[in-house]
């Protein structure tokens, strides 16, 4: 901090998520949920401690090696959708498949968009879609590579209740089909309850695990 004091955002966190498990990280704003998610996904590095993902210790990998580890095996869903504004829905979904050098990327992407109910909106740009639709594209993109792990950061945070519900149904439906591990950050108790396990975070510490 600017006055020289050290601020611990997360501390004394010891957790393990098994393959195929769905885990919710619950906590109020500022409790460090998103930071924890970033660390678990290898988007950031802890100042102390150790994080492993898919059997690899992330601390031993550099930025690019962590990216390579994610490629095709890790999916993301964000609160603010994070679609590329210049790309159509189809292009956005095909992107991870193309990066992972999968064959028939566009065909697979098209099928996924049909699955999330956007078969008629393939060539639409994000700005031509509603918030709920954008998040469905993001879901399709997240599942495009048949990921082993899916990280979701407040996936309904920007949506109305109705759209939020539909997104969650879709998310769990897709997960059931793919069978991937799910790490979900939310402050929504009901949503958290749909997961196998809930971790409660407060002021950077795990206070409860059910």
């Amino acid at each position, binding site marked *: 901090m600017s006055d020289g004091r050290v601020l611990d955002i997360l501390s004394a966190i010891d957790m393990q998520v098994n393959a195929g498990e769905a885990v919710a990280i619950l906590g109020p704003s500022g409790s460090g949920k998103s930071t924890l998610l970033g660390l678990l996904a290898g988007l950031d590095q802890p100042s102390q401690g150790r994080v492993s993902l898919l059997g690899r210790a992330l601390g031993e990998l550099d930025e690019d090696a962590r990216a390579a580890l*994610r490629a095709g095996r890790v999916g993301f869903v964000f609160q603010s959708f994070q679609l590329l504004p210049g790309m159509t829905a189809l292009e956005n979904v095909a992107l991870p498949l193309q990066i992972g050098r999968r064959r028939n990327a566009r065909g697979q992407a098209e099928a996924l968009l049909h699955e999330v109910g956007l078969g008629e909106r393939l060539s639409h740009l994000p700005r031509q879609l509603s918030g709920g639709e954008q998040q469905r594209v993001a879901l399709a993109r997240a599942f495009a590579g048949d990921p082993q792990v899916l990280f979701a950061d407040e996936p309904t945070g920007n949506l109305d209740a109705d759209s939020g519900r539909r997104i969650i149904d879709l998310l769990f439906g897709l997960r059931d089909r793919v069978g991937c591990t799910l790490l979900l950050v939310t402050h929504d108790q009901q949503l958290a309850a749909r997961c196998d396990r809930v971790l409660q975070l407060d002021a950077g510490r795990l206070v409860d695990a059910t």
Partner: protein
Amino acid sequence: MSAAALAFGHWRAASRDPGLRLLAVAVVVAVAALSSVAFFADRVERALQQQGAALMAADLVIEQGAPVPQDWLDKADALALRHARTLTFPSVIVANDRPLLVQVKAVEAPYPLRGRLRVDTPQGEVSQVPASGTAWLEGRLRDRLGAQIGVTDVGLGELQLRAAGVLVDEPDRGGNLFQLAPRLMLAYDDVQRSGLLGPASRVKYRLLLAGEADRLQQMRAWLEDRLPRGSELADLENARPELRTALERARRFLSLAALCASLLAGVAIMLATRRYVDRALDGAAVLRTLGMSAAAVLRWHLVQLLLVVIVATALGSLGGLVGQQALVSVLGDWFGEALPAPGLRPALVGLLFGLSMALGFAVPTLLRVGRVPPLRVLRREMDAPGLAAWTVWVLAAGGFFGLMVWQVQDLRLAGGMALALSAALASMMLAGRLLLLALNPLRRAGGNAALGLAALARYPQLTLLQLAGFGLGITLLLLLAVVRVDIIDTWQGSLPEQAPNHFLINLQPEERAALAELLLTRQIANSGLYAMARARLVAIGDRQVDPEDYTDLRARRLAAREFNLGFSADMQRDNRIQAGNWWEPGEPPRAQFSVEEGLAKSLGIQFGDTLTFDVAGQSVRAPVTSLRSVAWDSFNVNFFVVAPPQMALDLPVTYLTSLYLDEASEGLTLELVQQFPAVSVIDVRPILVQVRAIMERGALAVEMVFVFTLLAAALVSVAAAQVSRDERAREVAIMRTLGASRRRLLGGLLAEFGLLGLIGGLLAAGLASVSGYVIAVELFELPGRVSPDVWWFGIGGGTLVVGLVGWLATRRLLGVPPLQVLNSD
């Protein structure tokens, strides 16, 4: 899929990016401006070569003291080259019982091979060689002899020739205006019967050749082994120095204007890239979470940029082709005949230039994309570290400087621009920092204007970037809009209406007083009388001067010919000292020379060298104490080498002057010739007309290139206003949500842009004044004079235009529903 393949695959997505679109337009404008001038300059250069050929009446000339051997002619025939022989020698002719020294020239058809021979005959103007038994007489020869065309016979050796026409123009008369003896032209076969071509005669034989370049090259190679010592082989000679100077200035104006346009476009490119990168960062972070390596993300964007730039450069080159055609339609008839077709080289230059400029300006900023932390997907405020702003500017400016030097091949011009640019950027940055400091307290104030002004302080980086963008734009625009007019006025003013249009040479010392009185009583404006002597450069230091030592043709000619060594106490107004000092009036008399810098360069004369001249058998030796540049297009009396008057005391000198004769004083020429028989009057009006035309059309051409500059300046303004558009959109949305009225927000935006324009304009006016002065004095060697209008245009125009541009660029933000903006975050 590789990053490059992804970039290709997603080119449509790239084409939707507003930053990339703006960048593409900027590249198109920059390349169009540069390549249109490059195309045009290339065509003019080749036209000048053709004109040079016309000045030799051929493409290749061999000159020697012996007749041209028959096998040379046979070889020329074998190579399908056109050829004609000429010979010249001084001789005395007699007509109406008057003997007169003339320069005889005998020519055979199809002389001239290049250029045009013009002869006035009672039957009208003709352009062929004289028929057997007849001669063409130069106008002043006719006047001297009092000859009547078609009636008078002229005796040349054993020949009697009928004066059949007046020689108006002869292409290979050469650049030497001061050829003393007037010309008599006759048929080549006739002269063989004159009995004057004996072994002791001072005859120069020439073989003129013209044809295809590769055939000429073969002929040249064939001849080089056979040329006897003393023979001289000349190809394209320099055009007349008067025309050279004027054309060189016109070319500099054009280059300067084109450079300003492309520099502005470069700034627009940089600003557009900044916006493109800002928008690309979010996407890049997503790509990183999807597993792309940093290098691959960067590669993707680089390929994307490259694609856009290649397409834009090609379009720009096409634009250049159209632009140069417009220049040609204005300037083409400088050259009398059609210009050569546009070549491929300028297209390539434009392409390379556009490519490297776009990359040079864009890549330093684009590097940020490769450094974006993937965590940005969760924390949008996480920025990608870029190079420091000044590094980006320095890299871009350095790259641009390299390109400028390469493109204009003019270190002084490029250096001047680079220096001005650095000074401009430094002062913009300094002023920007001061402005930010001064605005900081406003962040706590609450008025409409304060709201806008505080926005400047909230985004210091963007503010500095915008100030630099607007400021540079206004500076270059002012430089061309106001200073250009000043410089062109001064240039045209350097050749006033009453510029000398006649030269009087070979006046004897004892005739000086009489001539001065005659000019005074007739109120004829003149440049004063100058003493001169015909002098031959014998040695530079201890080294003997031998034309054979020089490989450069101009140097060879200069070394071989006699100079007009001038004597003067004062330096001509249009001269400028480049090294050393001119002699002061009170200085103790000592022998010294001042040498024209072009001559010094050609002959390898250094400042401080001791030169030895042979003046009618007398040896004159003195050190070079100054080097001068000379404005040959001023039509004042000027000399390659000048010495103080006291050095003339023991030498055989004649006097010369230049004067302005209007239509009414035409008759004076004849009177002068009669009163001072030895004096030659040279009419330089045809050259004067040409120089004036170059000045007028040159000014017009600059106006045309200026259109590109205007376009580029508009682009910079738009790009600079767009730089902060996304930040502004968010702020406006939040403020609207908080209840700020449209009027209040608009007031803030206007105040913000208006202040940027005011400060940018103020700085720009100062910079344009200084650089305008320096450009006039240093680059164009004209007196520096910058109109105070620069300040009005700069400050008033800057505030208004930038305020307007900012308002136009951001007013739509006020109409967008706040939720739309906030949701897109």
